[in-house]
């Protein structure tokens, strides 16, 4: 079987698809000087428009997506991305970030409205829309906490960020980027943070506690109010990783749980598309005492005008250029304004219903549930004895469904973290459970079955070891 070509391999000198407007006049050497110019052109592809269309259409066909496939990745909230939102975003494409704000009152009104909606939904006092992704929001939040402690003269004293051992990898990585040491606390037998270990870890050196609730096992931390009280009692700030907000959106608010800072993943709960890995969008909300530290600018209202408020002397500064991933902010706004409060309640209610339903179905199919109890929007399963999660994941691909998140959280062996989301029908979940059962049956009947999977995907299992040992990170042109 031949290799699927790279766009460079479809190239022939002299072809091209698109033609910009033609200008004539002085040469670049005349305008800029010969020494400023490059000696040879970049070797970009030269393809006809139809070849280009076929290439990227065929590549799209070599790709699973929510549009084509059930995609129950735990902690990723792969819900349907409404087509309406793409139309909404198209209305705001030709806006320059530096155009006169008086002539950008529509988009500023929208962003101001979204700040308000997200504050209401999270129970926080102020929102910055600037962070580009969840991890970027985490960094924003932890830097604000650091600035707060420094302003209180406790910057030197508070050196530690506490995370549960089940935390998303971004949490400890963020704490490091913010110059903090990380202490992990263990998970108890009920799947919740070990409360004694947690309280013992807290101290005068604690800067922040980073939690997601429900946690990465899909279990709601029932002692959250006690944890928040304990953290505040030692002067620590409580950070909410919003990756799992879909479990409670509209029904419970991080602000009411006692959190001081929250980031949201608009590409999860608020259904902006993941785009094959991004752009995400990670707004941050804070309680009033941290609001002075939010990145500048915020969108503010002055009478009947909306302005970009850059006069924020205690701000941690900018996290990125301009105001945020506005295209995605428009999509999230469209979502919230389509659903309203009742619609958001329905989202979390059905997300939790679906996850619990699928948990029961996976048990029927022979899988073990880690910390088996009523879960929220996701749960963590394990394969039947003797089978490996990776193999099952690969077998699922042959059935046209995407695997769950595998080998996370790290605290469960052979973890399969499943998050179906509210936009899937019970029929889809039944079909997934049936596939999961079939895979187990076939694996038990034929030891070669799993080892050979997948068989029908565009490519089969990859040699990842060689990819890492001898990295080939760009196309090798014949002349190289």
């Amino acid at each position, binding site marked *: 079987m031949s290799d699927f070509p790279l766009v460079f391999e479809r190239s022939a000198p002299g072809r*091209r698809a*698109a033609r*910009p*407007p*033609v*200008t004539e006049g002085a040469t670049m050497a005349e305008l800029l*000087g010969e*020494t*400023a*110019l490059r000696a040879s052109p970049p070797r970009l592809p030269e393809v006809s428009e139809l070849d*280009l269309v076929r290439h990227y259409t065929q*590549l799209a066909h*070599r*790709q699973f*997506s929510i549009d084509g496939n059930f995609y129950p990745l735990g902690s990723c909230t792969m819900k349907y991305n409404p087509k309406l939102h793409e139309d909404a975003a198209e209305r705001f494409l030709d*806006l*320059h*970030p530096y155009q*006169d704000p*008086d002539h950008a009152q*529509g988009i500023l009104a*929208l962003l101001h409205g979204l700040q308000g*909606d997200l504050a*209401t*939904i999270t129970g926080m006092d102020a929102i910055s829309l600037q962070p580009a992704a969840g991890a970027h929001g985490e960094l924003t939040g932890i830097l604000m906490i*650091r600035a707060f402690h420094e302003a209180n003269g406790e910057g030197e004293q508070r050196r530690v960020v506490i995370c549960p051992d089940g935390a998303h990898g*971004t949490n400890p*990585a*963020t704490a490091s980027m913010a110059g903090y040491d990380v202490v992990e606390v263990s998970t108890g037998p009920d799947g919740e943070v070990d409360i004694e270990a947690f309280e013992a870890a807290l101290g005068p050196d604690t800067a922040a506690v980073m939690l997601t609730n429900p946690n990465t096992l899909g279990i709601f931390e029932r002692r959250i*109010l006690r944890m928040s009280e304990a953290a505040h009692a030692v002067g620590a700030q409580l950070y909410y990783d919003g990756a799992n907000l879909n479990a409670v959106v509209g029904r*419970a*608010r991080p602000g009411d749980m006692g959190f001081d800072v929250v980031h949201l993943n608009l590409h999860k709960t608020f259904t902006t598309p993941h*785009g*094959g890995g*991004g*752009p995400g*969008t990670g707004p941050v909300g804070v309680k009033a005492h941290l609001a002075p530290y939010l*990145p500048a600018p915020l969108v503010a209202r002055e009478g009947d005008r909306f302005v970009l408020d850059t006069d924020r002397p205690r701000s941690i*500064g900018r996290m*990125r*250029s*301009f105001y945020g991933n506005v295209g995605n902010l428009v999509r999230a706004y469209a979502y919230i304004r389509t*659903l*309203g409060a009742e619609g958001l309640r*329905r989202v979390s209610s059905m997300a939790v*219903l679906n996850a*619990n339903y699928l948990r029961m179905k996976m048990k029927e199919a022979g899988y073990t549930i880690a910390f088996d109890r009523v879960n929220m929007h996701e749960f963590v399963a394990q394969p039947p004895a003797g089978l490996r999660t990776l193999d099952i994941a*690969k077998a699922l691909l042959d059935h046209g469904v*995407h695997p769950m998140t595998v080998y996370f959280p790290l605290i469960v062996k052979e973890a399969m973290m499943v998050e179906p989301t509210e*936009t899937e029908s*019970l029929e889809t979940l039944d079909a997934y459970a049936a596939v999961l059962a079939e895979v187990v049956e076939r694996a038990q009947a034929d030891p070669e079955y799993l080892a050979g999977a997948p068989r029908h995907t565009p490519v089969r*299992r990859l*040699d*990842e070891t*060689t*990819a*890492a040992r001898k*990295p080939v*990170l*760009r196309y090798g042109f014949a002349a190289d």
Partner: protein
Amino acid sequence: MPYVPHTDDDIRRALAVIGVDGVDDLFADVPAEILDPPLELSAPMDEVTLLAHLDRLAALDQQAVPTFLGGGVRRHFIPAVTPRLAMQGEFVTAYTPYQAEVAQGVLQSTFEFQTMMSELTGLPIANASMYDGASAVAEAALLAVRQTHRETVMVSRAVHPETREVLQTYLWPLDIDIEVVDLEPSLTTPVPVVGDHVAALIVQDPNHLGYLEDMPAMAAAAHAAGALLIAVVDPLALAVLREPGSYGADVAVGDGQVLGVPMQFGGPAFGFMVVTDALLRQLPGRLVGQTNDVDGRRAFVLTLQAREQHIRRSKAKSNICSNHQLAALLATVNMAALGPAGLREMAEGTVRRAHQLAAAVRAAGGDVAPNERFFAEFVLRTRADGVTVRRRLAKRGVRAGVPLPAEYGIGNGVTLAATELTTDADIEALLAALHDVGELGVVGTEVPA
């Protein structure tokens, strides 16, 4: 309810399987005192109402008028084929390509992206994208600190002011010092004396004001001190300008908006980072590598993940997880659509139109700064402050004039940008508007009363 398929029967069936009486039983772990707070959100809108609401908002925004704004984002030609291909549902609604067998679309197009960015910059290793140019510069500075074990970076004042603000935000918690290199009267960066305590020299070319820097001299100055040169570049300009690899830059970073991403009020576009082989292990962000499958077919996969947060947690090179893949795909398709000739024509058109504009404004008596070596934008000194000039021009139907920050010490002024999309009629409109607001006739002629 929109997007939720459950009928009443479905809910009853699911509850029976789960073995609870009602959906609220599934929320029993949430403390009662915080469950179901009242939420004051707007009443839901149907599709028609929502779009009409957005149309009313969009009508308050100045769009589709002559545009001369730059400062990191510009309006460039985007052929129809680019968004049609990149914004296919399979690309838009995919997740990070962790299951490579069913993610060759994203993985291969990312490998193509890495190759194209490598070609543009003349450096071998590009990552799969960053959030934006500003955060990419900050990450590049952190890379240099890790590589050199030095704790100071030098940055030209002509690097975009917002980029320097982001740099400050990222470096502050790690106690890394920033030394700023002031500009010469030509509005370019003098070749600085780099001390051996410096991890990296960061210079933007073309700089924030539009002017070309002496990058080979910058590389020599940085390397003489054992520091890295981080070149902040405009990827479209690299279709004609010397590439960072040719003058010895260690890292090329920048923002990819100009490669086919709509302006969108500043985001999302994407950042890129391209480095020498020596810096591979310090590179943040995702990387796609080539390998084979068990049948010997070429295939692509995320690789060298031991640098990343989901493996290394607190020891990762960065906390970055989501990047700006879809915007990078727009650029990939766009570069493939244009090819080397089309990209060069866009860059040449940008240079020609910008120089035509500068000559026209100067001929009409505008106080254009004397440096002629600029790519897409240049400085116009103004009577009123830049914010006022921009507002007055906007009222006359022209988007123009990124205000000059006071830190440049050259008084009131703006930058004006042109691109290959700028027309003669656009330039006439700007000249008329500048005349109306009293910013022409500053040099050589009397100001109209």
